[in-house]
């Protein structure tokens, strides 16, 4: 099937099998290997991207379902310089191995769209679909709170 999608501002037209998962499309056809596959069972959130502006787990969407969509991956966030969320993750040491980080950052930017000034509890709830096996979440939550301050300022 023929699909066209815009990924990080670049348009792609491709023939894909209906069973191709969006995450595989992004990694193998569009070169967005910044989006990792963690659990492959829709539980960990590592593969989170923005589909038409809202966070989704790209391992749980078919590429054909994304036909016509505007997609942002972790590789499309920085605009010459790091996105405030990326910078906050860096400054707050919000990663160790970094495997969950692209998904965490995409989920965190989505959270701030609806709630630009979240409480710590709201940050924890907003990230409930993203698992980190290294940091214990403390610095991730700090980073999101810091980015929220920066985005407001």
């Amino acid at each position, binding site marked *: *099937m023929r699909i066209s999608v815009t990924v990080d501002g670049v348009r792609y037209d491709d023939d894909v099998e209906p069973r191709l998962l969006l995450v595989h499309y992004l990694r193998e056809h569009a070169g967005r290997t910044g989006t990792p596959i963690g659990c492959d069972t*829709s539980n960990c959130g590592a593969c989170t991207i923005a589909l038409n502006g809202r*966070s989704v787990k790209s391992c749980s*969407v078919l590429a054909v379902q994304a036909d016509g969509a505007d997609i942002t991956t972790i590789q499309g966030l920085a605009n010459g310089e790091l996105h405030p969320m990326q910078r906050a993750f860096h400054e707050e040491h919000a990663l160790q191995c970094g495997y969950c980080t692209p998904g965490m950052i995409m989920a965190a930017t989505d959270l701030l769209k609806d709630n630009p000034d979240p409480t710590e509890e709201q940050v924890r709830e907003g990230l409930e679909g993203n698992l980190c096996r290294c940091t214990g979440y403390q610095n991730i939550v700090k980073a999101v709170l810091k980015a929220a301050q920066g985005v407001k300022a």
Partner: protein
Amino acid sequence: MIPAQFDYVKPSSLEEAVRALASDEDAKVIAGGQSLLPLLRLRFAYPSVLVDLAGLDALRSVTDNGSSIEIGALVTHYELTRDPLIAAHAGLLTEAAGTIADPAVRHRGTIGGALSHGDAAGDLPAVVTALDADLVITGPSGSRVLKPGDFFSDYLTTALAPDEILTAIRVPKLSGWGYAYEKFNVTAQAWAIVGVAAAVRRENGQVAEARVGLTNMGSVPVRASAAEAAAAGADASPAALAAAGARADEGTNPPEDLRAAADYRRHLARVLTGRALTAAAGLS
């Protein structure tokens, strides 16, 4: 994990979608895909063709029908948590939808998919059961309307024929009722071990009427009739409502699995129903 091969069609009208389903017995509907895609990846299901409902924009609306709210089957869990009409007249859905999975899943998953999937641990089946909603279904020979008690038939099984589509959910407006959804799970994004959807109408310091729907207390969502009867006419007090809640497991047949024994589920249903009734009556 890669699904087995299938074809994919995205009809632009309901008639076309029903025709696509009727013309191939192994065709399957896909809405948000949040339950179906995991099954396809694990190769628990082998449809020949997926009929994507995403082109049916008419199924995305929420409308005020006077005495009820009509919610299109493609309305997402996220939209359920944000829609002002639903919040004003069916707040129990708003509250329960906010407990489903996590934000990314809620952006894709739909109310129609959650009901059609018929998962005993799903949150919305018990809510529509408590609210006694009408489920509107279209198939090759026209439309029909089912009540939740006739729609949910067994574990992961509903009364939907393979060529039928759930198009809308009509929720009666409960003006002046309080409500609460109590969900017990162990980790943030986990499914309910037991969930309780309660709605209560108070009158002169008493509970005039109560509705209670139970999640994961059987193969299908059930009404806690004994607790409802005990709550009706009771004092609107935490003690009286806890006593009514203590009858919530009567007549149920809860599952036994790795996460909970049946006895423990009965205990949870009793305690959570007391809490849900108390919260719905505005007492906590």
